[in-house]
């Protein structure tokens, strides 16, 4: 017992010496150049962010409106071609654009029809002038890109067709190359292959801004995520879904709950702009995408998984998405989504559990150790001379 006290005292003395050297901790300098942002600056920066967001949203609306005007102008009732090229597109670019669109359209499979989808390509090199020209900071209001692709859902067009509005900002070889690198069918691929969605499925897709159906490349076999850290990009609902917590997948899919995507202006709900930033809000906080960065592939993978015909039944069903999926595929949407998450991001490791053999070993060894510990220590006395 005395030895324990001596050791404790020695450790306490060492700790006291270290504390005496380090304490008091140096205070933060009030004149530091790295102090937190001042309140007025934070407020002004927030206001600037909001203004910038509003301005850029207005720019996107303007461009979309212009594109729809062009599309409407040349529209005819008997137009059954999956691609329409605007008169502004030079002939050699039109040939290249047709080739790119035809290739992507063919990948949708034999079901693809122009009755519910179309790709509209036009050239528009105009710039939107800034409000003040003499400002040193004035640049362009639009991001730099060679090609912009926006998807106008049927509500924004003629009520029947989803139109991919492809704006080429020039007609050089670089613009054509950029065209071939982008998906020109995107969400409209689903309309082309499966027609108009059923009532409740359509409502779910609209409420979630088609974020699970942004890619229609179901002809491509995707490997699981290579980056092990991609798993951490899931929101908590996605995490619950992956770990098999009941209701987690439906939460992540926003089925039966309020969608977590930021609400946009009503007329923007019919326009899908893949380049526009999308914020996922829950309780006023910006969160990760519920199903991670790959969530835009979800329904395309569902097409691959259950087959085109069954998916078509799901897509066109008037029922709620989960019951429609169950009746079309025979499996629940929840369990399929969990499988998809596991396949895409990797399985979660098993929870640590107490194994029987560990308990058995401990039960065997602990008494032996206890006996050794409490055994009286023999003192070796110096041999008598």
């Amino acid at each position: 017992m005395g030895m324990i006290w001596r050791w404790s005292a020695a450790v306490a003395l060492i700790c006291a010496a270290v504390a005496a050297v380090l304490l008091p901790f140096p205070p933060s300098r009030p004149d530091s150049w790295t102090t937190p942002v001042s309140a007025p600056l934070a407020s002004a920066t927030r206001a600037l962010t909001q203004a910038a967001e509003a301005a850029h949203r207005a720019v996107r609306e303007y461009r979309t409106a212009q594109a729809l005007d062009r599309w409407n102008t040349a529209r005819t009732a008997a137009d059954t071609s999956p691609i329409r090229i605007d008169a502004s597109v030079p002939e050699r670019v039109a040939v290249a654009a047709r080739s790119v669109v035809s290739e992507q359209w063919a990948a949708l499979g034999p079901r693809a029809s122009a009755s519910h989808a179309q790709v509209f390509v036009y050239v528009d090199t105009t710039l939107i002038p800034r409000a003040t020209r003499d400002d040193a900071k004035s640049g362009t209001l639009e991001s730099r890109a060679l090609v912009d692709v926006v998807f106008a859902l049927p509500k924004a067009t003629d009520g029947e067709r989803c139109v991919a509005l492809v704006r080429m900002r020039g007609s050089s070889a670089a613009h054509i190359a950029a065209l071939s690198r982008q998906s020109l069918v995107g969400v409209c691929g689903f309309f082309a292959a499966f027609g108009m969605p059923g009532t409740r499925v359509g409502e779910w897709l609209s409420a979630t801004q088609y974020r699970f159906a942004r890619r229609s490349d179901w002809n491509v076999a995707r490997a699981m995520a290579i980056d092990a850290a991609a798993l951490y990009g899931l929101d908590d609902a996605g995490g619950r879904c992956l770990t098999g917590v009941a209701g987690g997948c439906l939460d992540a899919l926003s089925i039966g709950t309020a969608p977590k995507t930021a609400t946009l202006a009503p007329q923007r709900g019919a326009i899908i702009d893949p380049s526009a930033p999308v914020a996922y809000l829950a309780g006023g906080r910006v969160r990760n995408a519920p199903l991670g960065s790959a969530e835009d592939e979800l329904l395309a993978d569902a097409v691959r998984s259950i087959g085109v015909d069954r998916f078509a039944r799901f897509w066109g069903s008037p029922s709620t998405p989960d019951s429609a999926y169950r009746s079309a595929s025979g499996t629940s949407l929840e369990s399929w989504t969990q499988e998809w998450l596991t396949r895409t991001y990797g399985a979660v490791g098993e929870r640590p559990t107490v194994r029987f053999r560990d308990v058995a070993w401990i039960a065997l060894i602990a008494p032996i150790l206890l006996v050794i510990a409490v055994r009286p220590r023999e003192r070796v006395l110096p041999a008598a001379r």
Partner: protein
Amino acid sequence: MSERHLVFLIAVAIAAASTPIRAQDRDGQPDSLLRRIQRLDSVMIARSHRVDSIRRSLVRPIPPVRVQRGTIQVRTDSVLGPSVRVAVDSVAALIERRGGTMLGARVAGHVLLVIPDSVQSAFWTRPVVTLLADTARRWTVGRAQTAADPTPAQVAAGLATLVEQIAMQGADSALSAWVMLGRAPLRDATPTETADEYIQMVTAQAAVVRRCRSRDVASCLDALGIDSLPGTRLDRWYAPEDYRSALRVAAPPREDSAAVDAWIRCRHDGDQTSCRAAAVALPNDRVPMPLPASVRQAFLREVLDAGGAGAYDRLLAGTGTLRSRLTVAAGEPLDATVARWLQRVERSRPERMRPPAGLILASLGWSAAFVALALIRRTSWA
């Protein structure tokens, strides 16, 4: 109203209702959308000015001590003043040695700050000295930190870092993209840097670097990203035996599931066939560079050394390809620069690592402590 009129009006109403959404329908006229953009843009610009104005008002009083040598001007406090004066002398000599009006003008456009500061550490704030490239802005591009009680050499190193960063500010995108690190190598290389450069060269698992080390100038220029040889990057840079190494830092796109499977097998099992399948599936822009940015810095230093005073100005003012600009800056054919650089790299092989004296002392001390504890255990305290 007659029945004909009523039918006509209903027909017009139905036609209007079925007219698809047009730009005009959204907000009146396209012009009105443009006017709205202009209005929002004005608001954005006004708020941007407001942020700038607040940021300017937040700048602390400039430290009182002013130190100037040539084009470099520094502000600091009275405690750091003596160290800063000595440091500024050496940095001014560096600027003069690299010479050129452009570098001088760029440095003269800044008032550097050397101020006492503090940074957050795990449990408390740690006093440091911060070096900033500007007094006007709160978050400046150029920034360095050093110990709380720095020697003149430490201050000089921090100031030289700022000058190197200032030298690359505003450089054209082609040169900036090639340099990658955002600073021009104006100082002489330290022994550690030259040793690292040698290690990078001899350990790079890339065929193009091996060819470079055997004095193939074209391969050196390709490996350094200055001038490319014909063919794809994979073919130019890597031999099949290098694929596994290259695939440690690059992966094929997820859409190519067969290639990703091969990539996983290559990484786990080292299967050469899988490595080849995964490597050939890499898009050209995903093939990893054979040499890191630090080697490019070292080569740029060689170019500036070869060009002498004014080399930096010629590099920045030059036009044309990167190769021609580096040639003009070096003032000699680039082949000669590459040859000299290779000789220097081969000469800079580091000595075998010598264990530091502190490590030896610590080992002896701990050993003695354990022996002492063992002896104490034998003679019980109880």
